[in-house]
């Protein structure tokens, strides 16, 4: 028998994946356009890319954990089809922002 529901972890970390991917793209634009942001990121770990990766990976893990534990540990609720569309659309959009930024602005 077909079960149409996704687990709370799938939903929570799916949303975290989209948020972290978009944040990754926006952080690219921020550090490339602002020497202050770039300098701050370099200052934290010695290399802007290490700070960038650490922040985005932590954002994914922490946000995913929080979203899977809200609602009395039931996790965030979302229609399965909407989650699929959000994950695919969000990841593709984030990729397009990065590629578009370096094509047009960078």
């Amino acid at each position: 028998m077909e079960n149409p529901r996704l687990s709370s972890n799938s939903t929570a970390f799916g949303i975290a994946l989209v948020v972290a991917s978009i944040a990754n793209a926006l952080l690219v634009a921020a550090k490339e356009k602002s020497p202050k942001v770039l300098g701050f990121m370099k200052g934290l770990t010695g290399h802007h890319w290490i700070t960038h990766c650490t922040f985005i990976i932590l954002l994914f893990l922490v946000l995913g954990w929080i979203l899977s534990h809200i609602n009395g540990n039931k996790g965030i609720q979302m229609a399965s089809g909407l989650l699929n569309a959000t994950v695919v659309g969000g990841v593709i959009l984030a990729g397009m922002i990065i590629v578009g930024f370096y094509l047009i602005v960078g």
Partner: protein
Amino acid sequence: MFLGYKNPPIDLMKEILLMTHVFLGVLCILGALWVFVDTLNAHDTNLARIRLVSRFVPVVMTLGFLIAGYWYVNIYPADKAIILKGPWPFAHDFFMETKEHLVLMLLLLTLYLPIASSADLSSNREARRLTLWVSSLIVLTGLMMEGEGGVISMGLRMGLLPH
């Protein structure tokens, strides 16, 4: 001189690190492709294999990411200077710049793959669809990374040619 290297242990280590990260990237792509194909035919008998391979993908990706990160931070700056002075500066300005940030999305996708495929894929249509999407995004992004890596090494080669 050994195999054409002036400083064999260090120079060889650089080459081995570079090739290892490419090899692990290929393993990641093949693993995600395996998950994709197995998920298309998901049934009770291949669920354990799908879960095993979907856990293998983030392991090889994380290893490759760490090696590539070490290489990018410590070894690549010398190559970058050569690329930027050569006839193919876009190999760094566009291809390396996008690669170093798109690869982070690829890492997150691989970390998400075992979560997406943890459901009973034989009876859960939406989980099956999600696993298919995530694994196909990993394959496509991974292939893009391999292609970008090829252009970057070509940019370095062009920079080393007399011009």
